[in-house]
């Protein structure tokens, strides 16, 4: 078991064995979460603050439940409504919070790199809950756990990530993680939603759904933001659905036992057909949400262990 990180800012700094450590520990929390009595004491006495500078219901709830199940004192701060509006800088907000001695800071911010900046200024362990278009590491980890449970392994799989890659931090974290674990990663989507030189990151790029899905083990759909649908990046919602929306016919090009994933919230009838999303034989979308809580419990548990090791003389990181 190895996990040498002080923060969880992204997948990029993680080594494959560290990813495995998180996933293995998360497995034990999956079991705990299915018990009637769900309490553990890994974060007892610690203070967790969720700072969301960008709206989120699902991710914030997931982190909150994860912290509470492990015994932390959890506080949610809706940063949009607070001091940021009064002109306080991110650093000042961070320093103010730091003075209250939190142990775990869960941060979502609309700017890429903002969470890294904040982590430099605080003593707490910082978890990135999504920064701009950069990374969303716990999403990639929960996706990895879902894949590993469904497929029995997390290597040598062909995984197609489809849709708005350019604006997606989920796609970036996933392609990094799946690449590190030695999978074949394909990106599928319209050229206008594909980031520049992304092929240099060791992935295959397709603009045709059928070709991109051919023989895939996993089909991962991404959310298409409403504001990007009309004319700017794609001509219309219906043309997008026609060419890149996941329906039964397009899915038939993937392997027969291919699973379908989506980070949510879904736009049914835009990037994914409703019946596929609900097909219990193919869709693992609900399981992704369940894995989210377990993975976040595991990540916070490991970071808390390293915090304690740091505080003790001669303490050793996990």
């Amino acid at each position, binding site marked *: 078991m190895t996990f040498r990180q002080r923060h969880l800012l992204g997948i990029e700094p993680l080594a494959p064995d560290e990813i495995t450590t998180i996933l293995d520990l998360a497995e034990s929390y999956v079991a705990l979460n299915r018990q009637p009595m769900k309490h553990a004491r890994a974060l007892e006495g610690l203070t967790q603050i969720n700072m969301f500078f960008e709206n989120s219901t699902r991710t914030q709830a997931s982190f909150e439940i994860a912290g509470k199940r492990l015994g932390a004192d959890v506080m949610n701060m809706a940063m949009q409504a607070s001091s940021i509006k009064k002109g306080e*800088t991110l650093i000042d907000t961070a320093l103010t919070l730091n003075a209250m001695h939190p142990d775990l800071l869960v941060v979502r911010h609309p700017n*890429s*790199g*903002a969470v890294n900046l904040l982590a430099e200024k605080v003593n707490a362990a910082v978890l990135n809950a999504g920064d*701009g*278009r*950069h990374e969303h590491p716990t999403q990639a980890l929960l996706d990895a756990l879902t894949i590993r449970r469904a497929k029995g392994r997390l290597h040598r799989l062909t995984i197609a990530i489809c849709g708005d890659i350019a604006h997606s931090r989920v796609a*970036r974290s996933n392609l990094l993680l799946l690449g590190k674990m030695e999978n074949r990663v394909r990106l599928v989507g319209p050229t206008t939603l594909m980031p520049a*030189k992304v092929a*240099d990151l060791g992935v295959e790029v397709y603009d045709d759904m059928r070709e991109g899905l051919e023989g895939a083990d996993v089909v991962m759909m991404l959310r298409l933001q409403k504001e990007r649908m009309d004319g700017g990046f794609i001509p219309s919602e219906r043309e997008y659905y026609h060419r890149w929306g996941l329906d039964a016919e397009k899915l038939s090009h993937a392997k027969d036992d291919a699973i379908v994933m989506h980070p949510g919230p879904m736009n049914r009838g835009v990037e994914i057909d409703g019946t596929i999303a609900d097909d219990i034989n193919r869709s693992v979308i609900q399981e992704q949400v369940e894995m989210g809580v377990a993975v976040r419990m595991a990540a916070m548990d490991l970071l808390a262990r390293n915090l304690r090791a740091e505080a003790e003389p001669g303490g050793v990181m996990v």
Partner: protein
Amino acid sequence: MTVITFTNARLIDPEAGTERLGSLRVENGIIVGCDGRPSGEIVDCGGKCLAPGIVDIGVKVGEPGERHKESFRTAGAAAAAGGVTTIVTRPDTTPAIDTPEVLAFVTRRAREVSPVRVHSMAALTKGRDGREMVEIGFLLDAGAVAFTDADRTVADSKVYARALAYARQLGALVIGHPQEPVLSAGAAVTSGKFATLRGLPAVSPMAERMGLERDLALVEMTGARYHADSLSTAAALPALERARAAGLDVTAGVNIHHLTLNEFDVGEYRTFFKLKPPLRSEDDRVAMVEAVARGLIDIISSMHTPQDEESKRLPFEAAASGAVGLETLLPAAMRLVHAGAIGLPALWRALSLNPARRLGLPGGSLAEGAPADLVLFDPDVPFVLDRFKLRSKSKNTPFDEARMQGRVLGTWVGGRRVFG
């Protein structure tokens, strides 16, 4: 009569293109000749390099409006320490230098406190808003040496064409920072693998070529005198070559940071590396160095842009652009010499002779009758840069803790020693 003789100097003469051991005699602030018998004050150069002082044509001083970032006093001190004997200030101040009255204020402030020569550029359009041209005639009379909206491009081609035509009849030099404004709006870095990995808003290097092609077409149409500054991409160079071949009155400049750094230096969102235009690929950097070496790019400047800690300690997208450069221009440029990309006389054409000539300023020369604006430097001495030792009020240098070579030993302006 004050006489100084610099003896035992490695004389870097950009005009003659030579580098030789000798001495230089200065009388009453004017160079009167080489060699001959030493007399007056003797400065033994100990075999180190003596060159015309640097003429830096893109310097932002925070007066008026942002004196907390840089004043004429601190900018002047930084320039003297960096071997820069003439600074040409940018008009992107608050308010912009767009009237003779503001220009007169700036000129007076500079004269009062700066140890080096200061000349000012004026905005090309009022408030740098790209809508109405400034009083180019009055500003010329008040001493403006060029007209530029600096990093804001005049998006409206009709406004730009008229401003260029009006400037031409008065013989004024117009400086552009070519960029297709819509394509580059909101960009923090250059598009490519690095931008994709970091998830930052990016602009294709093609936006610079598009901006330059537009500007050059308007120059061809109006016959204006034009300097394309802050060029940074290989894709823009063929257009420049064509304009030169066609005989247009066009020169070009590059900023030192685009000759010495590339996009990957941003690393983990380091905002001191956020520049405008953004840092480019390594291929672009190499192409720009080659373009300077073969004379296609005429001028190297620091594009000195002081920013305080508050405007840089922000998420990368929200942070201010620009870096200070007056004190690091010379050692950074030495990297090109030590890499074998360019010789000292050719480098000094770009740092001193060409900018002086293009803007019609004295300096850049070791010839008889030239002002004794001189820099004495050791091109080899190594050091590690400590940003807190910079004389600029703002410390936003991308070279903090960098290993550099080349140190200024003394700076003279009109024969008066201002540093060392």
